[in-house]
Structure formats: structure tokens, C-alpha cells
């Protein structure tokens, strides 16, 4: 395999694909994101069949495949289900490593939320810890309007 390069030099064609996207959140997620922005409140949607409160909210319950029903208030506090400390910079990360990536179950929700932890040493994080949302001063209607969760 190596001797092929005695008579020819490898040519590498370098390029990049840059495609702008505009992802529609849809009515259900839009309502959630605007409430988060304007009222600093989390909303879930309850499935009429399995009674699970889905947060992030969905128009359709993924478990039962029926349209979800009522909006339900969900607390801005909850518990760490699991976590990891991301230590290697992959170049496309929300923060500079090391940072804590966690799955958080907010009180009143039956599904988790992926988010970041702050105001705590990474080594001190434990599953089961109670945490609370810290909102950004300037909010634009996206999930990062919550800057991070901090220990209660």
C-alpha cells in the first residue's frame, strides 16, 4: 500500500458544505418557548391516554401515538437523572470543556430535559441532586433562555 506513493503524490480535495437552515418549531414548541421567554415558566403537555406529562412538550405522544391534550405547569426545579462531565473539546460544544451535561427531570414532568449544569464544581455533581433553572437576562425564545441549572 505504501509503495504506490513512490510514483504519485496523493491529491486531497478540500472543501466545505455550508447550508443555512430555518427549522420550524411548530405551534406546540413555540408556545412552550414563548412562555419560557416571557414568563420564565416551563409548560408540559399531558397525554390523554398514558397520562404522562411530556416536557419538552409534543403535539403527539410518542408512546401512544395520540394527540396530546392539556397544557400542564411544570416546576423550574427538578432532579438530576444522570450526567457526565464533557472533557474533550470537539469544536462544536455549547461551552468550553470541562462542563456538565445532564438529563434533568423537572417536578411535574414524566420525561427528562437535556441541559447544562452551572455554579457547581464538575466533580461535586451526583445523580439525584436537586437543581433549579437559572434564566438568561436576555431571552429570545429558545431552550438556552435557561442558561443552566444550579444546585438548590
Amino acid at each position, binding site marked *: *500500500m505504501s509503495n*504506490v*506513493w513512490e510514483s504519485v503524490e*496523493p491529491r*486531497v480535495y478540500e*472543501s466545505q*458544505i455550508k447550508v443555512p*437552515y430555518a*427549522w420550524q*418549531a411548530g405551534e406546540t*414548541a413555540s408556545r412552550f418557548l414563548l412562555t419560557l421567554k416571557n414568563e420564565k415558566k416551563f409548560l408540559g403537555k399531558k397525554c390523554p391516554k398514558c397520562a404522562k406529562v411530556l416536557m*419538552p412538550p*409534543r403535539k403527539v405522544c*410518542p408512546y401512544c401515538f395520540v394527540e396530546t391534550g392539556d397544557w400542564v405547569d411544570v416546576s423550574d426545579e427538578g432532579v438530576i*437523572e*444522570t*450526567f*457526565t*462531565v*464533557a*472533557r*474533550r473539546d*470537539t*469544536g*462544536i*460544544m*455549547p461551552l468550553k470543556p470541562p*462542563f456538565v*451535561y*445532564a*438529563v434533568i427531570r423537572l417536578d411535574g414532568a414524566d*420525561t*427528562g*430535559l*437535556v*441541559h*447544562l449544569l452551572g455554579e457547581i464544581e*464538575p466533580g461535586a455533581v451526583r*445523580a439525584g441532586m436537586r437543581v433549579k433553572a437559572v434564566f438568561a437576562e436576555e431571552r429570545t425564545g*429558545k*431552550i*438556552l433562555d435557561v442558561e443552566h441549572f444550579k444546585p438548590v
Partner: protein
Amino acid sequence: MARRAAIVATGQTHHRSIRRDVNGQEIINEAVTRCLEDGELTIDDIDAVVIGNMDHFEGINYVDCWSVDGSGGFMKPTMKLTTGGTTGSTLAIAGYHMVASGAFDKVLVIGWEKNSESDTTGAINTAFDPIWDRPFFAGAIAGLAVTAQSYMDMYGATPKDAARVSVRDRRHACLNPHAHLRKEVTIEEVLASPMLADPVCLLDMCPRTDGACAVVYAAEGIAEKLCPQPAWVLGVASRHMYSYVSDADFSGGALFSMARASQELYRKVGIKEPLKEIDVIELYQPFSWAGLIWIEDMGLAKKGEGPRLVWDGVTDLGGALPINPSGGVISTNCIGATALIRSAEIALQIQGKAGDRQVPDVNLGVATGFGGCLWTDTLAYGKKKPE
């Protein structure tokens, strides 16, 4: 009633971190040529082609068309499938279904990837929801690490237990001339390797690889004539799960889709005691911890007792149920090919063609696939044609 079908030929490249000497079509051609030679077939024997990879790794979205120099798909029915990590097992299941349905007699199935050609993390990022998951994307490693963390928390397993899995697979890889990383490691070396995402270290993780794999599925009546020992498909089962990462129940780190798919596979094949009845497993194990957790989900050990099975040597070559004699995914990971290599390796084991990594007397082997939002494919192969 579906027709019975079997793998009659396999081929794979000698997997490497980077193959500068071949382009994408050429690396595919290498695996296909080896596969056809193995089965003493020509491209004219092939009725249809199914090919797959992960689009964003090479940035080519019409692979079915673009790859005909490699696949031999010119003027044949050809389609492309992409399902993330499970691409290779989806390909295998599709090839099997195409033959079992009666639509085609001989189907060439190809999985490939030139991971060296792009930014793996950037490409994997596109597999996650842009509004809910991508803003926090901490890499595929962090996504797996959270399951290991839950498993440790619930059962008290340690990084040393996971390191033992890594030691096993990396030792097996030294016996496989096709494997990418062929270097033995010690438990101490695994534990001392850089921490990527707690508790997962560099030597717990799979690499990124350039490589390709091809297999031919043939129908009963034809398979026996083409091949002295076809690897018969005994059953397949597939389970998909979630939209968003956080939908999963992380308690204990269990892979719910693996438990469900395995149960269905065992029911279809008639397996009552998997640990006793299965002779070899090629587990799609992207990191060492999966070699502890997922074998419990497969019903090989009780919850929390996977480490015991591994420490006792049961899953080593020479043990009662060897896992990953090929060296597995942590030794070779050309992503679109990775799950297809699992099936190819089981076929080699059944055919007695696995060389230094041969497990004696393989009558029943299981291959698995794993992908994105925690989904699973399982495939069982046997020496005897199923009744």
C-alpha cells in the same frame, strides 16, 4: 411464509484510520471484489444491491448512484439506506428481507465509510434534534457516558470493570488481520488513558475508521449450491425508540431497545437460555461499558452481574460464550460498515473461516446493531437451515 435465506459470501477491507490510496468508490470496490471472490461469484450473479453509509461523513447524498464503480450496481436495482449507527444492521435486515420475500434470489449488501474525510463529531451532530438536543450537544461520547454513569450509580460497577471489556476486545483484535487497532492494552493503561466524558476514557472508546464490508444473501435452493456452508438467517428483530435524547429512561443505564429486540429474537429462534445456547456474539459495542450493560439487557446475566461474567472469562475467546472475537467496534469503526461487519463475522464463524479468531463449533451466532437515540437491531445466524 418467507423463504429461508443465508449469507453465502463475505468480504471486507483491511480497515485503517485513513486510506489515502483509494477514494470512496474504490474502497467499496475492494470489499465487493473480495466478497465476490469469497463466494466464487461474478457481478452478473447479483440481482440487486443495497448500500449504506452516513451521508454527512462524506457529504455525498446520492451514494446509490455515485458508487456504481464500487458496488457493481450499474443497471441493477440499487438502493441506499441510512439509519446512523445501525446502518449496517439495517442493510443486513433489508438484504435478508429482499431475499426472503421472494423478490430477489441474490442480493449484494454493502456498508462503508471513509470517516477520515470529514469531521466525525460535526457529522454526528446532524443526527440530533436541532431545537432541543443540538444546543447542548457534547459529542456522541457524552451521550453514551450518561448511561455508564447511571449504571455505576445503580449497581456499583467501576471503570475497572469496563476496562476489562476493553482489554478483551483489543486482545481479540490482534488475531484479526482486518481489524484497525491491533494492540493489546492492560487494565492500567485503559484507566490511565485520557478521560473524555466521565467515566469514559479514550481506550474505552471506538476509533473512527476507513473501511468497507460486503455480504451476499441468497435464497434457499440457491444458497446450498453456491456455498458449502451457508450462514442461515434464523431470525431478525429491530426496535426503535425515541425522538429526543432525554426521552430515554436512564435509570440503571439499561438499553430498553436491546432488551425488547433480544426477547423477540429469542422467541422467533426458539432460544430459551441465551447464555447456554448462543455460541458466539458480535456485539455492536461502541464503548467498553456497553459490554457490561447490554449483555444484561440481552439476558446473559442478571442486572448488575455483567461484570462478573466478563471477569470470569466467559466472554473471552476460549470462554463459554465469546463476545467480539473480531475485536469488535472499539477496534474497528467504519460507521456505515460497522454493524454489517458484525453479521459478516458471525457468518465467518459459522463457516469455520475465522482464522486465528475462530470459535470452535459455532452452530448459533448473534450479531447486533446500535444507533443514535438508543435503538437496536439483532440478527441470529445458524449452521443448519431453519425448519
